[in-house]
């Protein structure tokens, strides 16, 4: 196990992804001490300031002091730097939680469908039905029905991912189930639940981790899209999508309002995807590169 871990860490793509993501996580966790102000605080005097503007800023404590606005302010006079940094919290929370939730539920369904033929026939038809509904439409419907809260957004994004994870896990289980070591476990009297947990699950974990990163990346994007469309979290909560949605109105005069959250969003998704590619190359033997001179 240790050797696998070392091999994974040697991969350049994995390192790149991990470094960028750890920086982002550090930023999200330590947002209050990175020179930010309350992201919802508005200073009406300083509206539509350009990046790096030196201004006299009135903070939430009503004290006025000189301040450098690294990323400028939006049309309400809110500090974009603070909003972007706090926005990382939402994006990363949504991405990671959606990945975990959809992996756990999808893995459970996938194990059931892959191992028990009868469950398979019914469950996979349900999943086929879910696949037929566009993910973003389903998410919009769920948020509209339950109201815009963080938990709703997470569920709304996770639900459309579940069939995809289920399909992947099912296909893995279908091939693992035929392995002689599973038959060997059956013949030494191992109960079915134990076979699933001790033999099938550990042998399908690598492709699942890889899939998890892709789910994470698409969840971060989808959350931003929902926010941008005004269907995500309420606009007073800073998310990269919300910031961009508000920036759309003033895009011609203040493009930086869109630019900074956009760069953060792109960088995060890129890092997660690169990490996923690296993990796939190192963990999944099917994608192992073969150095052939053919």
């Amino acid at each position, binding site marked *: 196990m240790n050797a696998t871990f070392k091999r994974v860490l040697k991969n350049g793509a994995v390192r790149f992804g991990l470094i960028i993501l750890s920086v982002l996580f550090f930023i999200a966790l330590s947002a209050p001490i990175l020179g930010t102000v309350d992201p919802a605080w508005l200073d009406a005097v300083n509206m539509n300031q350009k990046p790096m503007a030196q201004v006299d800023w009135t903070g939430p404590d009503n004290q006025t002091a000189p301040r450098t606005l690294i990323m400028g302010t939006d049309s309400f006079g809110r500090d974009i730097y603070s909003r972007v940094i706090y926005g990382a919290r939402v994006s990363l929370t949504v991405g990671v939680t959606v990945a975990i939730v959809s992996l756990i539920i999808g893995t459970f369904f996938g194990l059931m469908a892959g191992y028990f033929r009868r469950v398979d026939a019914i469950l996979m038809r349900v999943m086929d039905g879910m696949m037929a509904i566009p993910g973003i439409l389903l998410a919009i419907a769920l948020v509209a029905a339950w109201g815009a809260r963080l938990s709703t957004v997470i569920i709304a994004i996770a639900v459309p991912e579940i069939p995809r994870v289920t399909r992947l896990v099912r296909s893995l289980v279908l091939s693992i189930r035929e*392995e*002689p*070591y599973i*038959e*060997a*476990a*059956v*013949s*030494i*009297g*191992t*109960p079915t639940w*134990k076979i699933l947990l*001790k*033999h099938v699950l*550990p*042998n399908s974990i690598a492709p699942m981790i890889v899939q998890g990163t892709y789910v994470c990346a698409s969840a971060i994007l989808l959350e931003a899209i929902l926010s941008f469309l005004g269907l995500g979290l309420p606009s007073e909560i800073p998310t990269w999508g919300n910031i961009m949605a508000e920036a759309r109105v003033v895009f011609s005069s203040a493009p930086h309002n869109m630019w900074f959250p956009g760069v953060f969003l792109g960088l995060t998704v890129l890092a997660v995807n690169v990490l996923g590619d690296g993990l796939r190359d190192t963990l999944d033997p099917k994608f192992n590169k*073969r*150095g*052939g*001179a*053919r």
Partner: protein
Amino acid sequence: MSAPVLSVRDVTIALPHGADREHAVEHISFDVNAGEILCLLGESGSGKSVISFSVMGLLPDNVRVASGEIRLGDVNLLSLTPTQLREIRGDDVAMIFQEPMTALNPVMTCGDQLDELLAEHTELSMSERKAKTLAMFEAVKLPEPERIFSSYPHQLSGGQRQRIMIAMALILEPKLLIADEPTTALDVTTQAEVLTLIKTLQRERGTAVLFITHDMGVVAEIADRVVVLQHGKQVEAGNKNQVLREPREAYTQMLIASVPGIEPPAERQTHAGSAVLAIKGLGKTYSSGGWFQKKRETVAARDVNLALRPGETVGIVGESGSGKSTVARCITRLIDPTMGEMMLGGTQLDTVHRDSLKLARKRIQIIFQDPYRSLDPRQRVGEAIIEGPLNFGVSREVAMARARELMSFVRLSPDVLSRYPNEFSGGQRQRISIARALALDPEVLICDEAVSALDVSVQAQVLKLLEEIQAKLNLSILFITHDLRVAAQICDRVIVMQKGLVVEEGATRDVFLSPQHAYTQRLLASAPGRGFEFHKAAA
């Protein structure tokens, strides 16, 4: 004597850093002359395939020829550019691979695949190419060449696919044919036919053949000269008769002594007592098809009767598709038989469910063919061995202590229990599988091709271990194999199966020395290297 077609001189091939050894092969030298078959004989890891790849210029990027010379006629193959090499492949050198299904393009008809070759390498017109292809199909003795011409590879049998491969290899009349384990994936009767075919075509055309194999029987059947390899080093080279009958080197002697003789030993004790396992009229029919497909039924086994007494070894012999594995899987209840009755001691095995099935399973244990897939790669071997006892309520400490005993019993160090399966060789893994089966103290042990994937020297050790275990524990063994030599040596009685039916059964010596059924006779006649009594030659 004219110049050799292929001349390999002092070739050393380097492996990338971090491989298990520095050189894949070291200082290999041999010649292949026109019209002769040279066999490269070696066990797995001997580097025999690497040599064939280096001749074809097919080595992976990170493996390279470090020194030496490979000449085809006057051309130094190692100095050619990829383009020049491509011209030589097919025209001058052709290759046959082990697995014909993966070597043929599944979405092209067999005729088109040969046609493509001809179009690429010759100036013939379309009708001439077709005529030539059909003539070639005729030459490799394919039935109905016209039909085969427009068939896809999956529509043909394994033997027919290998004939297509041979036709593809020989149609451009190459000077050198490289055959890399071409018959290993085939049944014995098909193997015998394909070997005869290669030999006949090679004699007619005067082709030089470099034949790579691990099978001493095949060498005896086909070779003119033999080069023996071990761990990348050339151990011995010489004429077939000299190497097989009077081997000079210890390694070759050991290899030849490991080949089980086809003649069953004279003295076999008879086993009395009531049967541990009695099977009457066992049958298994698979039906496929569902909502949208037509229903189809396949009979995998029919009317199999069998009685296994304490301490006895009964063999089920047959080729692929004979239903021998189906019988094994029915007995272990990995699949449910569709008819018949199975009695294990006093238990009706075919109807037990849940808890009583679990108890019955404990008494019958199975060892599988593929040592690389029968152990969970993510489970430490100690955990694998104690998993069975833990399922039956044995405490962890007791089970672990027993696992250590079992490891010594199968001649492995008890200290390696905490390792993962990938740290063991094929033979060691098979010993671990045996230990795992024995951990449940079974009465019946089913070996489903348990030694077929092993090198012959390892195979001999595992067979010896099985015999010792049987003697000590008075186990009954049901030994399922396609290898007649192994069956001859280890079984008290044999059952011969063909296409799901038992065609012959009896005491091993009777069946082997005076086979009654035509199929058994054909099977025995096909066993490669019948003329050589390997174990006697080495003694």
